[in-house]
């Protein structure tokens, strides 16, 4: 079962997704698949904030900033749940980790394929993604390609998902 949660920056989407997974998990083992690479103090603070929010939620953290399909081998075979946080970091890491940036198409296909396989492994998968589409700014080619990749990934995952939920100011809106 796949649950897709989308929202803007500081919309409360992560907390919502964590609580959602908690409610689904009961006594099951819960994995938190973290994708953020920390480069500086600000990134570190963000990670710390997220750790604080989930500190009593009993997650097992898997750091998987790239090659999401590799997370599968780190998860028990037994009935368990996972939260993937988040698509925007994963996409940036896949796209820009190499000096030759990959195309939106290649990145999107790789990520969607990896996530589908991950979804087959766990009983419930909650995915957090970002709305990066509405600031009306015309960006450089690399960023535009990134936005396109995000769009494709969100579209494909939302299609696969059993539920799609948008979070706005901490309020959840069921889209699918």
């Amino acid at each position, binding site marked *: 079962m796949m649950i897709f949660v989308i*929202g*803007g*920056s*500081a*919309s*409360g989407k992560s907390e919502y997704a964590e609580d959602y997974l908690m409610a689904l998990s009961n006594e099951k083992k819960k994995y938190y698949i973290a994708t953020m690479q920390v480069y500086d103090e*600000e990134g570190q603070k963000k990670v710390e904030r997220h750790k604080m929010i989930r500190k009593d939620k009993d997650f097992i953290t898997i750091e998987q900033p790239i090659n999401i399909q590799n997370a599968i081998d780190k998860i028990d075979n037994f009935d368990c749940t996972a939260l993937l946080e988040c698509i925007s970091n994963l996409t940036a890491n896949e796209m820009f980790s190499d000096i030759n940036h990959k195309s939106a198409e290649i990145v999107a296909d790789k990520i969607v394929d990896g996530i589908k396989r991950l979804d087959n492994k766990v009983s419930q998968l909650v995915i957090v993604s970002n*709305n*990066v*589409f*509405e*600031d*009306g*700014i015309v*960006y450089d080619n690399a*960023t535009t390609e*990134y*936005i396109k990749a995000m769009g494709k990934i969100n579209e494909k995952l939302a299609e696969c998902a059993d539920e799609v939920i948008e979070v*706005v*100011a*901490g*309020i959840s*809106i069921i889209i699918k």
Partner: protein
Amino acid sequence: MKLIIGGYAQGKFKYAQKKFQVENKNVYDGKLPDGTGNINGTLIINNLNTYIRQSMIDGTFSEKLIFDFIDKYPDCVIITDEVGNGIVPIDEFERGFRETIGRIQIELAKMAEEVERVICGIGQKIK
């Protein structure tokens, strides 16, 4: 308190005016009342985002001021732009602004008796 959110130029203020019939003198645009004078009737704070941005620039920003204001005027209507739906800005101030306003909007939505999201001038009640 009632909260109205939505993108830029979506007709949020017009929507609120029509719905709540607030007198012009009770409309505060990009600012909070300074605390002097008597206010009767419902208040609208339009563009809370502008207020937050300006007070962050001035270095006078305080969440407490906003929450104290709501305590004092629990019947007010607050209108604010949604700004988080884009690429994370390179500029540090802009990033901080988005984080700050996003977190405040979550708190405001929790306090609000009603939250509406306006798009194309049409309000959707989300709480």
